[in-house]
């Protein structure tokens, strides 16, 4: 039997400063055999660790279509993320995963996709966005609505530019009022307001929403107003986690474990859970 707590040993190939206290690490396997047997799907997450400091949970922010590496984006918040932020390119990192369920993108063939993200909520969607863009012919219209508190808080700035320049992606970026800079070309306003303004069609459309709880709370009524039904709205949950495999109990929401039954969930399924997320 395998010791499921043994991490893969990886090294940081590239560090990108995204926003204040927010970084993206590109990680590669130290052992080529580990890389060969490793695979994951959009929506899954992992436990990233600095030996001697502990583990922290983040989604895999890169797409499974991009082989040979994984990426994670994190904000410095506690002991482990502080230790991670002190790492440099070439340094070693532990990784366990992939864990959790996935976005059912095979079922989304032929549909329009609407991604709505707020702040640090873009990394979990970035994985599925690139996954869908790399299989672009499988989907109809792709719309991405991304908002942050201020221009400097927007993550993946280069990729936003790339999506903006693509004719097959409709990107709408927005910042909260007061968060704009003189040369800001995007919208100014909160995500739910901008969503209402853009009013994307709900017919044959899947919506995936990820962001701070307050954004999700105010975005959902707009989606319902636009005609989206509960089965076609996906989100990805976050709860404090330790083991990632349904044992430590931290992420439990009633009988549901975010780590193994989630983190990807439809709004309809969410309704059946106690509000403990």
């Amino acid at each position, binding site marked *: 039997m395998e*010791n499921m*707590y043994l*991490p893969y040993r990886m090294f940081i190939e590239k560090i990108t400063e995204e926003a204040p206290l927010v970084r993206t690490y590109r990680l590669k396997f130290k052992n080529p055999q580990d890389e060969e047997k490793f695979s994951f799907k959009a929506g899954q997450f992992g436990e990233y660790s600095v*030996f001697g400091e502990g583990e922290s949970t983040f989604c895999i922010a890169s797409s499974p279509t991009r082989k040979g590496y994984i990426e994670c984006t994190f904000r410095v918040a506690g002991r482990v993320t502080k230790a991670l932020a002190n790492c440099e390119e070439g340094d070693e990192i532990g990784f366990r995963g992939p864990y959790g369920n996935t976005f059912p993108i095979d079922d989304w063939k032929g549909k329009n996709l609407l991604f709505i993200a707020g702040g640090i909520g873009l990394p979990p969607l970035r994985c599925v966005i690139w996954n869908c863009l790399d299989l672009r012919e499988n989907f109809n219209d792709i719309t991405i609505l991304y908002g942050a508190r201020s221009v400097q808080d927007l993550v993946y700035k280069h990729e936003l530019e790339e999506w903006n320049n693509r004719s097959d992606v409709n990107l709408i970026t927005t910042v909260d009022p007061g968060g704009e800079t003189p040369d800001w070309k995007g919208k100014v306003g909160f995500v739910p307001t901008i969503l209402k303004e853009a009013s994307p069609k709900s017919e044959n459309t899947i919506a995936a929403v990820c962001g701070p709880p307050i954004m999700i709370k105010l975005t959902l009524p707009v989606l319902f107003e636009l005609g989206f039904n509960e089965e076609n709205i996906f989100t990805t949950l976050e709860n*404090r986690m*330790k*083991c990632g495999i349904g044992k430590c*109990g*931290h992420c439990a929401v009633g009988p549901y474990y975010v780590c193994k039954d989630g983190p990807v969930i439809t709004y309809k399924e969410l309704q059946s859970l106690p509000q403990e997320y």
Partner: protein
Amino acid sequence: MEYRKIKIDKLSNFINAIIAKNKKLLAPKQKKEKVFFAEIKSFDEIAKNYIQTAFSAKSAVFPKCEELFSYEKINGETVLKNPPPPENDTVVFGVRPCDGAAFDYLATFFLKENPDFHFKQRYDKTILIGITCESGDEFCFCTSVGISPSDTRGLDIMLTKLENEYYVEIITDKGSKLIQEFSEYFENAEKIDKTKYTANIPEYFNNKLVREKLSDAFAWEKWDESSLPCFGCGTCAFSCPTCTCFDIQDEANPYGGSRLRLWDTCAIGLFTKHASGHNPREKQSERWRNRVLHKFLYTDEQFGTLSCVGCGRCSRNCPASLSIIDQVKAIMEV
């Protein structure tokens, strides 16, 4: 199932012989005013005349703190190492039927899905010798959760004290092997009815109705009121034979270190607190509710079994005198 008997005076020889064979023997042992499971080196150390140990023998298979792996830095490379398996068998003597049922639940929880390497290493080398309860106290309620004070569930061997001897039930292969190894102490026996030798534990509520009655209990308006004395110390969880929650922490030294898992509890606020500061279970009453519903509702949905075995430790040890019996009764009466 096979049956044996052993004379009362032979039991000490049997236990001492197990110890002499280099097996680790855990048994109830008096420590100041309480009784705990501890390693013993002689039968005489075993406590007599107690109702229940303060803690169960859960730590034999799921220790308070254990190494998940160790690591060492060698020439700039990190070398990871599994913890070694236990060398010898551990025999746990004097397991109450409620605790036996708890081991059964632990095995289901840890091994059914994503089997746990560390639990399995210990569990495979642990032999549980249970003993039928001759009496209970006001905290015992095994019969309310579908367990009897002479239940053999989860145990390898079961002893029941008769007039001049112990009646021995051999439940599993593990148990059978142990009896064979020490067969000189045992005599053959026929199956008997244990009722006469078994404690009478009153049934406070009907376990078959618990799930149905508790299915809407999340929205019960009296959680705040009923949990008011709870201040979140976690004693209930740490003395619970079925609590499985843990934390993972690193311990480092200049050359390497270990990743450890340590018992944790949903009774404390930090258990669910996000890095952002958001806490899905902000109030103590929400944490208490989670504990009660986890034991009596959620695991029934997950594994088809309640995860309370009615040992009564949470109430017996609670510094605020919260009674789980009263709590479940109150919800069921709604």
